[in-house]
C-alpha cells in the first residue's frame, strides 16, 4: 500500500505488521500492546511500533510509548473520526515524537486535518491518484484555530498552512 509522508511524497514502507503468534522480523515491526508488554524486547535494535485501535485511548499505552518509533491509528470508516483525537492526544498529552501513521478508510479530503492533529504519514489505497492527495492538502491553506502544527499560542489568529 502506498505511503505518503508529510511532504506529500510517496515513500517506501519499511514497517511490517506482525501477528501475535508470528516470529519477529529483523526490521521495523508493528506489534500489539499485549505482545509489547509480554515479550522481552530489550535486546532488540530494530524500531518498534504499535497499532492503536480506535477504541483505545493513548493513555492506555502511555507506558509503552517511550520505546516506540511508530503508532498507527485507524479510520475503520472515513466518517469515524476518533483517530483525530487519538493523534492529537499522542502529541499533546503523551509527548510522542515518533511517526503517527493514519490507516484505514482515509479520504484525501481528511489528510490536511489529520496532519494538523499531528499525523505524519498516511497509507493510501493501491492505485490512488497521488496528485489528488496533494491537491486536497493544498486547496484550503487558511486555518482559524490552534492545532499541533502551530507551535505557539494562536487562539484565533488565522494562519496559513504550508506543506513543510
Amino acid at each position, binding site marked *: 500500500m502506498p505511503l505518503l509522508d508529510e511532504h506529500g511524497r510517496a515513500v517506501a514502507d519499511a514497517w511490517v505488521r506482525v501477528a501475535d503468534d508470528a516470529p519477529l522480523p529483523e526490521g521495523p515491526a508493528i506489534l500489539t500492546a499485549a505482545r509489547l508488554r509480554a515479550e522481552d524486547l530489550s535486546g532488540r535494535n530494530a524500531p518498534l511500533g504499535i497499532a492503536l485501535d480506535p477504541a483505545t*485511548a493513548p493513555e492506555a499505552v502511555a507506558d509503552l510509548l517511550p520505546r516506540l518509533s511508530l503508532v498507527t491509528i485507524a479510520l475503520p470508516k*472515513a*466518517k*469515524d*473520526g*476518533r483517530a*483525530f*483525537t*487519538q493523534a*492529537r*492526544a499522542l502529541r*499533546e*498529552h503523551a509527548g510522542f515524537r515518533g511517526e503517527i501513521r493514519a490507516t484505514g478508510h482515509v*479520504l484525501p*479530503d*481528511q489528510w*490536511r*486535518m*489529520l496532519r*494538523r*492533529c499531528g499525523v505524519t504519514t498516511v497509507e493510501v489505497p493501491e492505485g490512488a*491518484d497521488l496528485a*489528488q492527495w496533494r*491537491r*486536497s492538502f493544498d*486547496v*484550503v*491553506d*487558511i*486555518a*482559524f*484555530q*490552534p*492545532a499541533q502544527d*502551530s507551535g*505557539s*499560542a*494562536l*487562539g*484565533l*489568529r*488565522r494562519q496559513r498552512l504550508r506543506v513543510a
Partner: protein
Amino acid sequence: MNALVEPLAPPAPAYPPHARTYRYDEVDREFLQERIAEFSGQIERRLRGELTEDEFKPLRLMNGLYLQLHAYMYRIAIPYGILNATQLRQLAMIARRWDRGFGHFTTRQNIQFNWTKLEDVPAIMRALAAVDMHGIQTSGNCIRNTTTDEYAGAAPDEAADPRVYAEIIRQWSTLHPEFTWLPRKFKIAITGAPHDRVALQAHDVGVVVRKNAAGETGFEVWAGGGLGRTPVLATKLRDWVPEEDFLAYLEAVLRVYNALGNRDNIYKARIKILVRDLGPDFLARVEAEFARMPRQRYRLDPEIVAQIAAHFAPPPFPRLADDPPAYRDALARDAAFAAWARQSVRPHRQPGHASVTISLKPIGGIPGDCSAEQMEAVAALAERHAFGEIRVTHVQNLVLPHVRQDELFAVWEGLRAVGLATPNIGLVSDIIACPGMDYCALATARSIPVAQMISERFADLDRQLDIGECFINISGCINACGHHHIGHIGILGVDKRGAESYQITLGGSATNDAAIGELVGPGFPYDQVTDAVETILRTYVARRAAGERFVDTYRRIGPAPFKEALYAAAG
C-alpha cells in the same frame, strides 16, 4: 439554458455602514474562495466516480447540501442569525434566480432553498461568497452554526454581548481539524441574558455569558441537551469558565465526546446519550481533560476578543426619549397598528428605540417562508430604519433589532405592504414547523399543512389574544426538527400502518423553565389534529385562573382534564 450573466463578485460588498455583522477581511474572503474550490473539486470527483456516494455524502453535507424528496436542499449559514441588508438582498436574488422565488428560514437561524439543482451549486456558492456568505457546516457531523439571542445588543436584560463569543466559536469551529468527523451533529447556543431566548437546554452545548462582580467575563456551560428520538435537557457543567479558557473548555467537552460518543447507532450518537450514560463521570472526564491540556495554546487572547467585539459595537444611536408623541399618537389613532405593536414591538436598552419582530407566520402560510419580494422589502426597511441589520429567530421569524420608536408606524406600513405585519408573535398561530413530508426525505408525516390548518382555525385575532401566549411546535418525524418536545403544545407526526398519526405532548418549554412535554394519549389522524388542539385550548380557557398562560394552567392542573376532554367521548 440560462441567458443571464452571473453577477461579478465585487471586491468588497457595499454594506450598510452601521450594520453590526462580522466584517470579512481579505483572509476571510480568500478562505471562502478556497473552500469553494475544494467543494467544486469534490463534486467533480463524485461525477467522475472517484468518490463513492457514501464518501461524497459527508463532504456535501458539510457544505450544506442535502438530497431531499424532490431536489437538493441547500442550507445557507446565517452566523448566529445576523444578516445585513446587502446579504438579505442577495438571498432574494438567489431565491429568484435559482429557486422558486422564496426561501425558508429555519430554527437554526439559517435559510434553506428547497429547489436547488446540483449543477447550480457552484454558481450559488460564488453568489453567496460575493456577500461573505456560505453553506459551510450547516449540516454533517460537525459543529454547526451557533445560535444566539435575536435581541442581542438590544435587549435591556443583557449582561454581556453573546455575538462576540458566537463569532469566536464560529471561527474556532470552522474546519476544526479534530472535530469535523464527530459521532453526530453538534449544536451550540449562546446567550448573554438571564432570560433564555435560545432554548439553551435543548442544545449539545449551551453557554451563558456572564459578568462577575469584578466586571470580568466568564461562561456558564451546559452540555448534553437535545431533542430527536430521545429528548434530554442539558446538564450544567460549570458555573464559571474564565474568558481566557473559553475555547480550552469547549475543546475539552468535544474531545471527550469525539473519543467516547457512540458510533454504531445513529440514534445514540448525540452527546446527550453520552452525558446521560456516563452521569457524573462525563463532567469528571471533561475536567480531567481541561486540567491537563496545555491551556496556553488554547488561550483566548483578550486582544482578539477586543478586535472581534469592535465589530459589534453599538450603532450610532441618536439620543431620544421613550414614548415619543408620534408613536403615542399612532397607537391611539390606528387600532391595527396598536394590535401589531402589542405583539411585535419589544423594549430596547437605548431610550427611544425598540426591537421589532416580523412574523413569517401569516394565517394559513408556511412557517418561516419568505418570498424574494419580502426579503427585499425587509432589507429596504432595515436600511431605512434599523441601521441595515436583520436577525433571524429560532422560531422562524425575523427581527429588526434597532428601530426608532417614532419610525415604528412607517416600519409597520412597509411590512403591511408586503404581507409581513401579521400581529401574532407569541400567539397560537406563531407556529414552528419543520418542512415535513412536503419536502423532507426523512419525514413520516406532513407538518406544514397541519400548521396551516391550525393557523386558519385560530385566525381570529381576538381569539388568539384571549388564548394568550402559547407555542405550538410541529415535527413531521421523530427527529424533532420542529422542536415539538419543547412546545407548550407539541405535535409529532408519525406513520402508523400507512396513515399519518399525530401525537400530542403538553407542557413543554424552551426557556428558563425548560421542560420536555408529556404525551397526552393516543395519536390523532390528520383530519382530527386541529379539533384536538381546539379541545385542548378550550379546556385551558375553561380552567385557567386569572393571568395564567396555557402552560401555567397545564402545570397547575396536570394532564387529566385534557385527557378527559380529548378522549372521554371516544372512550
